């Protein structure tokens, strides 16, 4: 028990460190990262607190009963929390978070299997162990058998199991320290190993249990907090997809009206959250496109006045990010939408007004080589594919028929788009998937927007001349 709890303590440090580091966005790739100050501070607080507990426990430990069983002074609830701490860090260490991330709630099977083992141990073994009054597995096994061979066997078994568990944990913990502090891997591992030995060697069961209780509290609080924040910020709930699927089937006022609150709560509100998250990223690489959520999000109501199609609602949810100070949705913009089945990310011009059409054609006639160069960029090609859009069959008036850019000039739409599976919508991938594509398309979009930016300059000068 003590050994198990010890090695899961290393996992605890690991899990704690990982969640702190993840919160600050430190773990992305391998290698050394910039110093992550909040994570390091949390790490030191945790280590200082646990060493304090170890010191306190070491002073109270007088007998073997104190060392192995905390002198019987741990209540059921405390021990329960400590075991929960064991469990949660072991679970996150052994990969249940990854499993649930990769395969959704199918990961549930794994956690069920673990949980079910405990009651069976309780029913069949726990009371007998208690009645024997022994501390370790080897003590129990050798109670009625020959001491020496049983103890050798038990030691070999325990040590080989623990070694494998511990090696993986030490590697993880070492990597983490390496990441956080920029310390060489070898020293990082030695540091963590020394900490573990101090905890257990001096503190015994009292310290180990208390460290686990603190860890359980931190993990419960941290995981719940993060889950709520993630749900509140982005990642659409399955209800959103369910709602959109329903709307596809019943595109009627009578269906929508009683479910309007679902739209507001599960679609509209998180969509605005997502738009804000995108804006804060855009601020870094394309600040002029930051668009307030109220302006960026499209209404779900269709404009049916001039359309044959009289269905009242859109079955996709969309937002656009356009060059500020231009009127909405006309010029080249970033855009994304999703339906129940897919997520579409777009950058370019879709419905240019007449003057814009001309401005873009003139720009391309002059600087087509530059534009083609941008489109050929490896990053853009893999993220968004080839240039798309409708083409006229003949070169429009005012341009030479044999113009080297005639294929670009004949177009009336210039855009790139990329379609993702609908599963991205309810996953954490949604934000990064959109951002990476927007980022790749930024130079292309900036290029297309040049005429509209320059157009404003003379006006400004005129105004200043007055």
């Amino acid at each position, binding site marked *: 028990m003590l050994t198990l709890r010890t090695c899961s303590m290393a996992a605890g440090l690991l899990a704690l460190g990982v969640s702190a580091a993840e919160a600050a966005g430190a773990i992305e790739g391998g290698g050394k990262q910039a110093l992550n100050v909040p994570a390091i501070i949390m790490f030191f607080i945790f280590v200082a607190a646990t060493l304090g507990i170890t010191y306190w426990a070491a002073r109270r430990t007088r007998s073997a009963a104190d060392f192995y069983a905390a002198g019987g002074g741990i209540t059921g609830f405390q021990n329960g929390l400590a075991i929960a701490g064991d469990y949660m860090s072991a679970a996150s260490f052994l990969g249940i978070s990854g499993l649930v991330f990769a395969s959704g*709630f*199918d990961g*549930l*099977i794994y*956690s*069920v*299997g673990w*949980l*079910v083992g*405990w*009651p*069976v141990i*309780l*029913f*069949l073994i726990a*009371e007998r162990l208690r009645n024997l009054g022994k501390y370790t597995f080897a003590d129990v096994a050798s109670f009625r058998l020959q001491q020496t061979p049983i103890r050798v066997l038990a030691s070999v078994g325990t040590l080989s199991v623990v070694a494998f568990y511990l090696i993986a944990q030490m590697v993880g913990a070492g990597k983490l320290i390496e990441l956080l502090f920029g310390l060489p891997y070898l020293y990082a591992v030695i540091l963590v190993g020394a900490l573990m030995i101090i905890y257990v060697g001096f503190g015994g069961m009292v310290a180990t249990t208390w460290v686990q209780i603190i860890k359980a509290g931190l993990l419960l609080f941290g995981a719940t907090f993060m889950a709520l924040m993630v749900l509140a910020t982005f990642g659409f709930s*399955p*209800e959103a*997809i*369910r709602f959109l699927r329903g709307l596809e089937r019943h595109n009627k006022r009578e269906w929508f009206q009683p479910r309007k609150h679902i739209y507001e709560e599960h679609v509209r509100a998180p969509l605005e959250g997502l738009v804000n998250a995108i804006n804060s990223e855009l601020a870094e690489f394309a600040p002029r496109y930051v668009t307030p959520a109220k302006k960026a999000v499209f209404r779900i109501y269709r404009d049916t006045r001039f359309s044959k199609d009289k269905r009242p609602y859109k079955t996709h949810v969309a937002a656009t990010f356009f060059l500020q100070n231009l009127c909405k949705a006309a010029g080249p913009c970033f855009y994304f939408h999703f339906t129940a089945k897919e997520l579409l990310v777009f950058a370019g011009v879709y419905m240019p007004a007449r003057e814009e059409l001309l401005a873009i054609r003139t720009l391309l006639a002059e600087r087509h080589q530059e534009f083609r160069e941008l489109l050929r960029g490896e990053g853009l090609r893999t993220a968004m594919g080839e240039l798309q859009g409708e083409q006229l069959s003949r070169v429009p008036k005012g341009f030479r028929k044999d113009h080297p850019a005639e294929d670009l000039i004949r177009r009336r739409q210039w855009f790139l788009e990329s379609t993702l599976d609908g599963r991205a919508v309810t996953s954490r991938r949604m934000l990064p998937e959109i951002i990476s594509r927007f980022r790749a398309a930024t130079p292309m979009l900036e290029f297309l927007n040049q005429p509209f930016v320059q157009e404003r300059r003379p006006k400004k000068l005129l105004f200043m001349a007055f």
Partner: protein
Amino acid sequence: MESSDFVERVKRDPQFQELVSRRSRFAWILSGTMLVIYFGFIFIIAFTPKVLGTPIGGGVTTVGIPVGLFVIVSAFVLTGIYVRRANSDFDPVTRQIIERAK
């Protein structure tokens, strides 16, 4: 610890023998229930995963989620039943037996 006399007295106590058989039967029934629930779940996953994958009421939540939660909750409930019985029945009887044998 206690002398072998004491151990012999406890062993001969009919209430002790009855306690042992009653307790182990109870423990085996609970363990069996737990294992049947768990392996039932696992076998359904293994042989007819479609059953658990059926969505409830046309939504995205599948049958598997409440069933999985039921397995988890049943582990807690069975533990609760055991603890209740141990506290109200087995432990007092154990104390009586020890008192008598002293």
